[in-house]
């Protein structure tokens, strides 16, 4: 059995340190039941640093994987832009509550970031699927059916969860678009990712297997955060610095870790890691 040699750079220390600081900060807010809204707002504006770091780092290292000329390069670029758009959304939302002192309007400029990240997560999932050879797997009719059925079931599920009985207000077309676009778009990126994972997991192996699985896991965690956000908001239960915000932070952490892992893998392979 090959023993994997590993290289951990300073970027791992930074990400882990940020993870621990934000986690203890959030636990302190919860443990001491701090009601001070400003303390919660400061937490809310800060944890997106993880997404910012992951996004910028991903754009930088994507070139080593061939950038827009390779599927892995395009996967990393897409997820990195998705992370940066999430951070833009976070900062925009915090701008309303922290600097303007008003309730966050909907739709608002923050939705450019949050909604904008959905097509990039979709693109990232698409390119990751291409990288793991989904086209070969889709030659089989049963696989084709699975690949279509999982997203269809997922969209039907979120429709019944969030959109049944929806009252259309066509005087606010952007609101109607976003009300449908968020749950459907988010369910599409995760279900396509799950389809690709289900189909490829039997054949996916080698040095990159763990990295690809981590990226699929990051997508699922991001979706859990998105889904729970919609659930809480639809029932008017969402609160600043609540568990949902920590879920988002954790999703950014796992996605950033996946990006770091792709860079670390490349370094190890170049150092003969495949023959270790």
């Amino acid at each position, binding site marked *: 059995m090959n023993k994997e040699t590993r290289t951990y750079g300073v970027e791992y220390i930074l990400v882990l340190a940020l993870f621990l600081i934000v986690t203890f900060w959030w636990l302190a807010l919860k443990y001491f039941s701090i009601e001070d809204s400003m303390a919660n707002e400061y937490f809310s504006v800060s944890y997106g640093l993880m997404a910012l770091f992951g996004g910028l780092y991903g754009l930088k290292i994507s070139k080593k994987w*061939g950038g827009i000329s390779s599927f892995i390069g395009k996967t990393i670029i897409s997820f990195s832009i998705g992370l940066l758009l999430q951070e833009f959304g976070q900062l925009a939302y915090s701008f309303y509550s922290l600097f303007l002192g008003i309730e966050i309007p909907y739709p608002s400029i923050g939705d450019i970031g949050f909604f904008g990240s959905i097509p990039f997560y979709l693109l990232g999932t698409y390119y990751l699927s*291409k990288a793991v*050879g989904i086209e*070969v797997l889709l030659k089989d009719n049963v696989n084709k059916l699975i690949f279509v059925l999982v997203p269809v079931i997922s969209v039907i599920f979120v429709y019944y969860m969030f959109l049944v009985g929806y009252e259309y207000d066509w005087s606010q077309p952007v609101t109607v678009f976003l009300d449908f676009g968020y749950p459907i778009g988010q369910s599409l990126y995760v279900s396509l990712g799950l389809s690709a994972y289900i189909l490829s997991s039997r054949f996916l192996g080698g*040095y990159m297997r763990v990295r690809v699985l981590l990226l699929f896991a990051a997508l699922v965690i991001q979706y859990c955060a998105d889904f729970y956000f919609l659930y809480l908001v639809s029932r008017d239960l969402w609160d600043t610095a609540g568990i949902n915000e920590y879920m988002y932070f954790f999703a950014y952490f796992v996605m950033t870790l996946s990006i770091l892992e792709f860079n670390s893998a490349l370094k190890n392979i170049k150092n003969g890691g495949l023959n270790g």
Partner: protein
Amino acid sequence: MDRYSEVAFKIVREQEMVVGPLAFELARNVTGLKINKQNEFSIEGDPKLALQELLMQYKKLFGELSLEVSKNALKDHIKKFQKGELPNILTD
């Protein structure tokens, strides 16, 4: 380029679409496979062995799927070879 070098070139280009420049770096480690600065391929020694080693390099990256991707890309080329002229992992 001879037909074995063409197959090697096709495999590397296909993998380049997946992993970028790493595909060429891994190919340069294959015994007998020569790639010049213009990315022209030639094979010294047993071409079957060189192709087998090349395919195994990529298999180490993504497992069986890498192999299937290469096979899929080469399905038209494979027809130009007699049985036994190519590595078994490419034709089985």
